[in-house]
């Protein structure tokens, strides 16, 4: 079932008109209501009259996370705080946290996009959903809650934690849907096994997972363990929380609600918009929001975008799973390299979570050399040098075909790649640029 066929299956031409009109309305709202954006646009020398269609969006300045921190708590809002219905706060590791303000209209919008996402995942009115995302300042729990009510589901607002009770509710109420972080789904499985529950026979048929990066291997693991179809939902609290994009049952990319969140994919260095299909930083403009619309917000998430129509019938463009973060991108010989791309290749070859590190050096001839250190996994060890060399060669060929950059692969002994706080440092850049 498609929740909002009119918007989700709209023709590209009509979509453009809708987006243009909505961008225009949003610019009026921010110019009238947001002290921050009034200054920002004035300093950029742009009047909202200059923006005639959605294609002119590239003339507008970007917004970054620091803008939200610097204007803490409410200065970026386009409405006085008396007109805000709900506030969410996402914790930051540095500086001020990021505050998101939702007007009444924004809460309706949020319910709408989550309802679309749930349908996209395969939910139908009347289904029961167990929401095991945290409720509170975090957007996961309440976002799924509002959308589930809008769609007409029966909601069990479990929030996260109290795993034994979650499992009892699962067994007694027999919900068809589960929504939580992918890691919590695996954690629950572990607890279930310890108490002798047969996970694969659970009533859950569909799981809607998000709020953290997860791999295809993790998806398979969750699907196998719980006997469900696991779909990825994407969002960020600055834009709305979950519901920005969600996979359909075909799992060929996440349908982005582009009539309300206008997506662009840019090169994070040059800030130029990239052609469709190229991985780059996702930039979002929340063109229908009222409380806290953001203009060209740089998400720091690396995705690629596909504008083709999906077999499910939706015309909404699809973004890839998050391929990485701009924070750990490196540029080698002019090509953007993300550790996650290399991780994908290794994962496909080894079949388990790989331990690896990228080392970039500038050689005397001025060229950059990318070396990939891979901890040798026991199952690929051989007593013959040629087999290990073949293995190295195979990895480098596969990486080269993904990156279009030559790499040297070097096998190293286990646990030799330094791990700080349990997380490996993925990139060592020895270039002094």
């Amino acid at each position, binding site marked *: 079932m498609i929740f909002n066929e009119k918007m989700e299956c709209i023709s590209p031409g009509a979509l453009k008109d809708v987006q243009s009109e909505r961008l225009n309305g949003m610019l009026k709202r921010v110019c009238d209501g947001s002290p921050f954006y009034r200054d920002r646009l004035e300093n950029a020398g742009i009047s909202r009259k200059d923006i005639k269609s959605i294609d002119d969006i590239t003339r507008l300045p970007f917004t970054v996370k620091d803008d939200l921190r610097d204007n803490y708590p409410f200065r970026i809002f386009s409405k006085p705080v008396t007109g805000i219905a709900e506030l969410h706060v996402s914790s930051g590791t540095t500086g001020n946290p990021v505050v998101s303000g939702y007007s009444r209209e924004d809460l309706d919008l949020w319910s709408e996009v989550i309802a679309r996402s749930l349908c996209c995942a395969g939910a139908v009115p009347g289904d029961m959903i167990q929401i095991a995302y945290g409720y509170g300042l975090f957007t996961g729990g309440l976002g799924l809650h509002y959308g589930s009510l809008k769609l007409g589901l029966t909601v069990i607002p479990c929030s996260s934690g109290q795993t034994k009770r979650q499992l009892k509710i699962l067994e007694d109420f027999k919900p068809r849907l589960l929504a939580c972080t992918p890691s919590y789904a695996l954690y629950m499985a572990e607890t279930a096994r310890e108490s002798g529950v047969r996970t694969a026979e659970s009533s859950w048929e569909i799981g809607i997972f998000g709020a953290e990066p997860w791999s295809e291997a993790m998806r398979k693991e969750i699907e196998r363990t719980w006997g469900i179809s696991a779909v990825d939902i994407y969002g960020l609290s600055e834009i709305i929380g979950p519901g920005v994009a969600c996979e359909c049952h075909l799992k060929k990319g996440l349908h982005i609600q582009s009539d309300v969140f206008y997506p662009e994919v840019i090169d994070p260095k040059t800030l130029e918009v990239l052609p469709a299909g190229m991985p780059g930083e996702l930039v979002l403009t929340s063109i229908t929001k009222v409380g806290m619309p953001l203009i060209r917000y740089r998400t720091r998430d690396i995705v690629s975008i596909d504008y083709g129509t999906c077999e499910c019938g939706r015309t909404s463009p699809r973004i890839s799973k998050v391929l990485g973060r701009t924070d750990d991108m490196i540029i080698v010989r002019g090509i953007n390299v993300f550790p996650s791309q290399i991780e994908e290749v290794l994962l496909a070859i080894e079949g388990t979570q790989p331990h690896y590190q990228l080392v970039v050096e500038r050689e005397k001839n001025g060229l950059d050399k990318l070396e990939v250190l891979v901890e*040798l*996994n*026991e199952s690929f*060890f*051989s*007593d*013959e*040098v040629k087999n*290990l*060399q073949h293995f190295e060669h195979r990895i480098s060929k596969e990486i080269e075909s993904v990156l279009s950059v030559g790499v040297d692969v*070097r*096998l*190293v*002994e*286990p*646990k*030799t790649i330094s791990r700080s706080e349990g997380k490996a440092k993925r990139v060592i850049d020895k270039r002094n640029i």
Partner: protein
Amino acid sequence: MKITQLSVFLENRRGRLYDAARVLGEASVNIKALTIAENEEFGILRMVVDKPEKALELLKKNGFVASITDIVAVEVSDRPGGLAVILKILDDNGINLEYMYAFVEKNADNAIVVFRFDDPDRAIEVLSKNRVRVFGKKDIQG
């Protein structure tokens, strides 16, 4: 009639061979034959030891990547042309040899050489048919 070889992955780093030898020495594992194959970045230490299973477990516990493989230990007469006799038999029978190395100790007047074959069972069959002595685990690792 196959014997067990222990292989260890060694990164080309200072002290790694010593580390491996120390782990085995402390556990009273005796190395009877060894060879190292290497390229620029890593080496593979191959050994015949008296307690291969125990040694494998110890090395793994100490963070090494290691495995065991079947190899064939053969008696080679200790005189000019002794090795050539064996190699001719293998060649005549189309048996592919991956690598080989020799034992330090001797068996009376004869040397012991170990061979790594793709198909050790067929190699043993051919060698035995040609009256070449092939040692069993009992002879070497017993």
